[in-house]
């Protein structure tokens, strides 16, 4: 088998040698040169046959045929440039779009996270389902318990913070992550420069070392190679830089803020400025990640963890009230990073796949039409002895060739427009930087092209098998066959196309309506002409060094900023709040800041004694409500008498009042933070509900505290008025003229914030709408093609009808009936598919039910309208048929 192959030329020369030897012999016997040669040949037999026989027996014939088919296919495609262009364009569009979406899915969902052994990494979520609180964070003793539990290799809490970095040209706000010293060992990543924290460092307080990101290193330190051991000030505290993380290292997180960490600091979460012995019931560590012991599955770890939680609850009944039903949930880390975009991405991939499929159906239709034009060619080849399989293979080779050309074109376009496309992907998409056209993506594109080629090539190829030779060859020179069967196939294809398009369009319609409803939702606050600028007061580790340590110390600063703010040009109103008070701030969603956001509290005189509840809270100055146009319903707002000496007061929203004191006057009621030493807080006013927490949710209970009473380090300066573009800079000047060390950032208008909070929804809605439009166009073209074809086929018949006096209207009706029949059949099938799909995507909808009759009816109507239009054009052409011409047509 593996002997050296003999070449055909070798065989030929052997035969030539034979002929020469033979003729020489014959010449010796007395024949003339010519006679000898002829006799030698005669006695040899058919030389060609021998050679052919040899040739065929030495090769894998399939390969030869393949090349033949390929060359022939290329020739055929070149000869029909119009058809080729349309088909290649359709496929290029389909493959290009599908590959683009797949590259996103590949990077986000399919690739493992870029950490060592990522499958062992988990997120730990502490829930108190008994009081409806989720992801409440853990306490330091709990963390220690988990570390010692034997379930984890490492556990590291992570606490997001923003700090003022000083030492560079201008005070900058940096995103900092406070982690346990084992954090980098846990993730299995190493810095590009210097070292990570010592995982065994359990000293109290903050480790006075930081690691910085590659971005900060380049931006603030000019990529200084001697950066190590230099010191930086974070909130006036001095830290030594011990390492620089590599470029492209992102912290695991759901939002861009969580991922784009610039500074990592480490602590074991006890010792000043934290308590020396942190209490078990104080959940001050907002998030935690862990690495499971090798070989432990998440399910196994979870069951061991459940046992641990149960025993801790028994051991410390005072810290874990039964009603709150404390649990710790393990989630694969990847799930927590990309989990919330999975549904959208899969929907997008499905949608784009449908577009590709519709494109395939269209090309199949084109091929079928052409197949009938080539019927004669096929028939002749069959008559000359070509086998069925050979013809099928040739047609399939042609269609795969077509789709490969299309796929390549699509990829090329994708390569060229990559940068442009990436700019349109919302920034909030996790692992955005990992998106690339990798080998996997290329393989996908190749596979998709091959499959597409087979899919749209199959119908025409199968048709070629059933040619009626007799019939075909008898037709004189004309290509049309229009066999009943072929027409049937084309109708089925058009029905399929309509069904698929309808599914896609209904999905798009539902998303569009959700988005529209969200855009037009009654916000409950006035976002017009409002801007939020942020600043952050330093929070040094040593409380004595804190210039803004108490509300009383902070109050003069707040008053001064308010006063100066009002003097800025165009500014009509100014208010202050902590960053939790910025309406719909996407950067804070899913992200917990110390002492911000969720607030555990206990109501006074609660019957179910000591059962804590949880509520969204923010601290603001009294001007906040008027500035945002949130009306006061009962009681009063904060006033000057509510200072740090006065008893704490609160303004609650209607939802909160309803939830806790239904049918009671909430004014004068009291609650307190869920801590022993916390003071009582008295309700002094009730305001209307506003969707400041979530656009999609109405009536989220909220409380507002007085900023002058609580103080706050992360502040937002709200301005209303005709604001010029220079306002953020002017605010910075004013703030820094009060305290030059303060960083000032932001300057988003609330309109922009609201719009940004819809970015992800907008992106998937726009994409789906785009795909749906493409589908509609393709389906319209498909039905147009089929109806045109039918009309041209029946020109003769229509001519006779008109000649016999048929009314033009009835001719139009006849054509329309045929087209609409197909469209309605397709729509019926599509409606069933749409019902299934819309149920699956219920989680992505807002305001509309998955079976929203308006969307279903509207979209179906639109599709049928397009079908009527697509049929009307050929119908009009049918009318213009001149009976004389039509009758001569045959």
């Amino acid at each position, binding site marked *: 088998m593996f002997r050296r192959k003999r070449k055909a030329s070798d*065989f030929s020369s*052997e035969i030539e*040698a*034979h002929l020469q030897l*033979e003729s*020489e*012999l014959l010449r010796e016997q007395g024949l003339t040169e010519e006679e000898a040669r002829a006799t030698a040949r005669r006695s040899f*037999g058919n030389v060609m046959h*021998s050679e052919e026989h040899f040739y065929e*027996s030495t090769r894998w014939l399939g390969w030869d045929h393949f090349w033949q088919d390929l060359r022939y296919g290329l020739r055929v495609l070149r000869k029909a440039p119009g058809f080729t262009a349309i088909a290649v364009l359709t496929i290029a569009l389909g493959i290009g779009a599908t590959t683009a979406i797949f590259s996103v899915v590949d990077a986000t969902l399919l690739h493992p996270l870029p950490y060592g052994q990522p499958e062992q990494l988990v997120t730990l979520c502490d829930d108190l389902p008994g009081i409806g609180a989720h992801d409440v964070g853990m306490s330091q003793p709990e963390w220690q318990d988990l570390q010692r539990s034997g379930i984890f290799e490492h556990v590291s809490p992570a606490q997001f913070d923003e700090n003022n970095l000083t030492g560079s040209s201008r005070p900058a706000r940096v995103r900092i992550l406070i982690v346990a010293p084992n954090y980098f060992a846990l993730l299995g990543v190493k810095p590009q420069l210097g070292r990570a924290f010592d995982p065994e460092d359990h000293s109290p307080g903050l480790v006075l070392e930081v690691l910085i990101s590659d971005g900060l290193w380049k931006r603030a330190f000019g990529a200084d190679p001697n950066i190590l051991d230099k010191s930086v000030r974070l909130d006036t505290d001095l830290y030594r830089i011990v390492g620089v993380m590599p470029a492209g290292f992102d912290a695991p997180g759901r939002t861009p803020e969580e991922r784009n960490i610039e500074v990592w600091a480490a602590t074991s979460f006890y010792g000043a400025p934290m308590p020396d012995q942190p209490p078990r019931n104080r959940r001050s560590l907002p998030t935690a990640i862990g690495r499971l012991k090798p070989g432990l599955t998440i399910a196994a770890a979870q069951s061991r963890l459940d046992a641990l939680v149960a025993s801790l609850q028994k051991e410390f009944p005072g810290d874990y009230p039964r009603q709150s039903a404390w649990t710790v949930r393990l989630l694969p880390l990847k799930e927590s990073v990309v989990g919330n975009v999975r549904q959208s991405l899969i929907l997008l991939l499905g949608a784009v796949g449908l577009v590709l499929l519709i494109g395939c159906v269209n090309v199949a239709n084109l091929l079928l039409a052409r197949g009938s034009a080539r019927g004669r060619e096929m028939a002749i080849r069959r008559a000359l002895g070509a086998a069925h399989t050979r013809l099928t293979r040739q047609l399939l080779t042609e269609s795969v060739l077509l789709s490969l050309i299309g796929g390549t074109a699509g990829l090329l376009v994708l390569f060229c427009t990559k940068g442009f496309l990436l700019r349109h992907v919302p920034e909030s998409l996790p692992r955005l930087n990992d998106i690339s056209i990798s080998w996997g993506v290329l393989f996908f594109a190749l596979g998709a092209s091959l499959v597409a080629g087979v899919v749209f090539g199959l119908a025409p190829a199968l048709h070629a098998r059933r040619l009626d030779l007799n019939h075909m060859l008898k037709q004189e020179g004309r290509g049309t066959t229009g066999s009943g069967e072929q027409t049937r196939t084309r109708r089925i294809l058009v029905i399929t196309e309509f069904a698929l398009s309808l599914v896609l369009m209904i999905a798009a319609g539902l998303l569009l309506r959700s988005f529209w409803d969200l855009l037009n939702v009654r916000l409950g606050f006035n976002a017009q002409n409002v801007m939020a600028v942020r600043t952050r007061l330093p929070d040094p580790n040593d409380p004595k060094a804190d210039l803004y340590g108490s509300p009383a110390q902070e109050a003069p600063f707040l008053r001064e900023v308010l006063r100066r703010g009002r003097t800025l040009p165009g500014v009509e109103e100014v208010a202050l709040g902590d960053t939790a008070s910025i309406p719909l701030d996407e950067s804070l969603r899913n992200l917990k800041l110390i002492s911000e956001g969720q607030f555990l509290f206990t109501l006074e005189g609660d019957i179910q004694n000591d059962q804590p509840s949880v509520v969204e809270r923010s601290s603001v100055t009294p001007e906040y409500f008027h500035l945002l146009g949130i009306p006061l319903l009962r009681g009063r707002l904060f006033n000057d008498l509510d200072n740090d000496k006065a008893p704490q007061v609160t303004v609650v929203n209607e939802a909160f009042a309803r939830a806790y004191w239904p049918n009671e006057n909430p004014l004068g009621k009291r609650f307190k933070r869920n801590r022993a030493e916390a003071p009582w807080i008295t309700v002094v006013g009730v305001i209307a509900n506003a969707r400041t927490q979530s656009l999609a949710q109405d009536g989220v209970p909220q409380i507002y505290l007085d900023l002058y009473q609580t103080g706050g380090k992360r502040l937002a300066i709200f301005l209303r008025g005709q604001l010029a573009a220079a306002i953020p800079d002017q605010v910075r000047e004013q703030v820094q003229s009060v305290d030059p060390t303060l960083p000032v950032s932001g300057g988003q208008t609330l309109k922009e914030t609201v719009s940004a909070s819809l970015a992800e929804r907008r992106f998937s809605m726009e994409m789906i709408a785009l795909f749906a439009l493409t589908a509609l166009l393709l389906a319209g073209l498909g039905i147009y093609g089929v109806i045109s074809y039918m009309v041209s086929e029946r020109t003769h018949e229509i001519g006779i009808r008109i000649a016999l006096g048929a009314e033009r209207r009835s001719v139009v009706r006849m054509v329309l009936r045929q087209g609409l029949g197909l469209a309605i059949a397709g729509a019926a099938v599509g409606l069933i598919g749409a019902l299934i799909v819309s149920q699956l995507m219920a989680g992505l909808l807002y305001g509309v039910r998955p079976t929203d009759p308006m969307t279903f009816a509207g979209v179906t109507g639109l599709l049928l309208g397009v079908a009527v239009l697509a049929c009307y054009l050929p119908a009009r052409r049918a009318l213009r048929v001149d009976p004389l011409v039509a009758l001569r047509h045959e």
Partner: protein
Amino acid sequence: MSTQDEKERLELLQGTLDMLILRTLIFGSQHGQGIARAIQQSSEEELLVEHGALYPALRRLEERGWISAKWGTSSNNRKARFYSLTAAGRKQLVKETTKWKRLATAIGRILDPAKEG
């Protein structure tokens, strides 16, 4: 029907041809034309070998490893592909010859039973 008949005849001829080629090569290596001529001559021109059929047979034998081939120069100074018998070929020839003789005897018995006494 007719192709069936032809096939059977071909098969028979092929088998015979293979044996005759092997037999011819016992006297030393030879090229295709020489083999054809040799068979013709030693059968006293009774057998007419179709030269075209010879080469597929040679190729078959070569593939089975019963003969080997290399290019050489003929007695009248022409390039030709020379075939020679391999050890396996020799064994095969013995086998075929025995088989053929048995077959011939058996057929002879049937066709001419009187001879046997």
